[in-house]
């Protein structure tokens, strides 16, 4: 699965989202619960803004010096006996991972949740060579057995499904016979996957953070599957987006604290695992071979541009959890595995405007995302920045360009502004019913389909002021 998901236009996908009442109910409940949890978690930390500023500083320092920290990281992984592969493209990353599987004669690969492997379509690449890839994160497993339904949220990938739908999928695909209680569904998966873990040849994970000073990979999880994936199979491959590096364990502390609180409102998730692989000679379990694949796949194009701060993202989904647009259309409508505000910023950067040009407009610029971001990415400003690029490259409609040119002219000339404001009432008069407009012409049609529009008043405020001042002078 590449980044792009689903065909059709954004409008059609959004409409479909709006009509999906199951999904909307689940998302609504989830957003409200996460909002409460996160607010609590913020409060417990004391000065949340101080933490945010510190986190922002850490991220911007690291990304500003990315070459340096990636070099230290790779040297340290190598010193520990691990292998590092720098992949410029998705294809390069996949070829390398395929070659390991081939050399190990791997039949079965166990995977923990990882967005970057989704992004590069790693599963498909491995499956094409005859390797079985099993997703072990509960949410990802649900999606995988449901004909590879794409994820709709970067932390809770199956958020768009309710438990009844999940129960049906389990019974249809895996002969499940119990109820739709989440406990029973989960126990079923635990039993089913235990065997698979013990038999897997290779374990593949993402990487929440890589620590440059020690060549370690940190995984932040709750289910324990990522621990199994990195404990039992003899080979561990970690795939990381190149920006996910931190200088030292001290910065790791800050960012992990922020990630857990922002993502799920926990102080720490059940498992934060620091892996400095491969295993030492005297260790009994853990991987004998460790590979770190560092993926660019379009990220370097963001460096040195006004969008650079998008690379500070730690994938907590806090922006998604507060987004009122996401709330109503769900993740699939974004047409990208990265949904919500961060998805609307990242997807056009990583894959180009062609497939994702509508996304920067799928925001009322309410700035809830910017406010929620633990590393202070100005998300709504970056959406405007995208609109700027799109307008400059004249990818907008001629009508809009023309209208905005006109706007600039009118707004900078009191005379023209006066004229426009005066003609508006006359132009709108035929549509005005008493004081309001119920069915407007032109662009007003979209407005009045949903809401009434106020009719322009006969006396504008400035006319009143003029009259009043005259009166005062008298």
């Amino acid at each position, binding site marked *: 699965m590449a980044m792009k998901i689903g065909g059709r236009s954004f409008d059609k996908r959004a409409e479909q989202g709006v009509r999906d009442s199951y999904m909307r109910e689940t998302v609504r409940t989830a957003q409200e619960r996460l909002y409460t949890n996160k607010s609590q978690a913020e409060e417990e930390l004391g000065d949340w803004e101080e933490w945010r500023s510190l986190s922002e500083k850490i991220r911007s320092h690291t990304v500003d010096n990315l*070459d340096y920290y990636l070099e230290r990281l790779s040297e340290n992984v190598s010193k520990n006996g*691990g292998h590092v592969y720098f992949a410029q493209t998705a294809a390069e990353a996949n070829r390398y991972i395929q070659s390991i599987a081939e050399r190990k004669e791997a039949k079965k690969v166990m995977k923990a949740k990882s967005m970057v492997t989704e992004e590069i379509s790693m599963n498909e690449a491995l499956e094409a060579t005859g390797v079985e890839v099993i997703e072990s994160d*509960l949410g990802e497993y649900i999606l995988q057995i449901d004909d590879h339904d794409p994820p709709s949220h970067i932390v809770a990938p199956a958020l768009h499904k309710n438990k009844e739908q999940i129960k049906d999928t389990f019974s249809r695909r895996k002969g499940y016979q119990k109820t739709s209680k989440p406990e029973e569904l989960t126990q079923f998966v635990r039993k089913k996957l235990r065997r698979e873990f013990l038999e897997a040849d290779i374990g593949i994970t993402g990487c929440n953070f890589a620590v440059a000073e020690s060549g370690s990979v940190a995984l932040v999880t709750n289910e324990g599957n990522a621990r199994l994936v990195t404990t039992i199979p003899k080979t561990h491959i970690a795939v990381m987006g190149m920006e996910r590096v931190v200088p030292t364990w001290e910065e790791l502390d800050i960012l*992990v604290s922020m990630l857990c609180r922002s993502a799920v409102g926990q102080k720490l998730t*059940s498992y934060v695992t620091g*892996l400095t692989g491969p295993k030492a000679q005297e260790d009994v*379990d*853990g991987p004998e071979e460790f590979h770190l694949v560092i993926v660019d796949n379009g990220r*370097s194009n963001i460096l040195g541009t006004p969008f650079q701060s998008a690379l500070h993202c730690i994938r907590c989904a806090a922006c998604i959890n507060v987004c009122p647009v996401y709330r109503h259309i769900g993740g699939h409508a974004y047409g990208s595995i990265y949904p919500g505000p961060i998805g609307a910023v990242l997807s056009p950067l990583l894959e180009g405007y062609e497939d994702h040009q509508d996304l920067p407009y799928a925001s009322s610029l309410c700035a809830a995302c910017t406010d929620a971001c633990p590393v202070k990415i100005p998300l709504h400003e970056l959406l405007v920045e995208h609109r700027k690029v799109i307008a400059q490259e004249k990818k907008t409609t001629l009508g809009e360009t023309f209208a905005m040119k006109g706007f600039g002219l009118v707004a900078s000339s009191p005379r023209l502004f006066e004229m426009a404001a005066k003609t508006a009432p006359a132009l709108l008069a035929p549509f005005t019913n008493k004081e309001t407009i119920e069915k407007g012409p032109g662009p007003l049609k979209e407005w009045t389909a949903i809401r009434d529009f106020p009719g322009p008043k006969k006396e504008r405020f400035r006319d009143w002021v003029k009259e009043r001042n005259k009166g005062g002078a008298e």
Partner: protein
Amino acid sequence: MSSGNVQNQTTFLNHVADRLGRERRTTVNPPSYFSFPHQKMGKEADISELAKVLKKQCLAIHTDVREATINNLREVIDQVFVEYEAITAAVWDDPRFHQFGLDSIVERPQVSVWGEEPGREANIQAAEQADVGITFSDYTLAESGTVVIMNGAGKGLSVSLLPTNYIAIIPLSTLVPRMTQATAAIHEQAEKGRRLPACINFISGPSNSADIELDLVVGVHGPVRACYILVDDLKKEKKNEHETN
């Protein structure tokens, strides 16, 4: 240990530097941070206050807590066994079991000590079939209710992971306010150029998931239940101090 391969490094990193609009950097001044909110947290708290914070947090993370002295630790562990209906156990090969008077537990035939069996598979198998896994805690983070364990050699990763239940023995002397103190210690090792344990776990309670409708389910792929046993290992030390004074 022989070094691993690093491929495509130069082209990749040159390109990154190029995009950043400069030459490659071979030295970087460590960032000057202007605030340290994490170091302030819990700084004033003494051990008993930290224990209080820890116990409260355990309620939030669905973790049972028991308290013991070195003298009755064995009985307390046995009580947890009864409660969890557990018979078999996997434990670390760790001198602390002896120091804390637990030889009689370790020597039971139903208890397998990590590394005792020959070979990787046999050890994993034993842990997988155990009802309980028992390890000591190396650092215990009060704020988040977290047990930090440094795995390696006789301290197998599987012991805290594969059994149905997990017991962490927490000497009070391991209590620190939060993650900050543990990562500082790890950072110190790294700075000295020491190789870190291949796996360091920060464990906060049993495994769980909220992937289905964001409803929390406790017990997924890792242990289904977790119990922390706080052992007062400080009293004795204090006595010694008095004696030497």
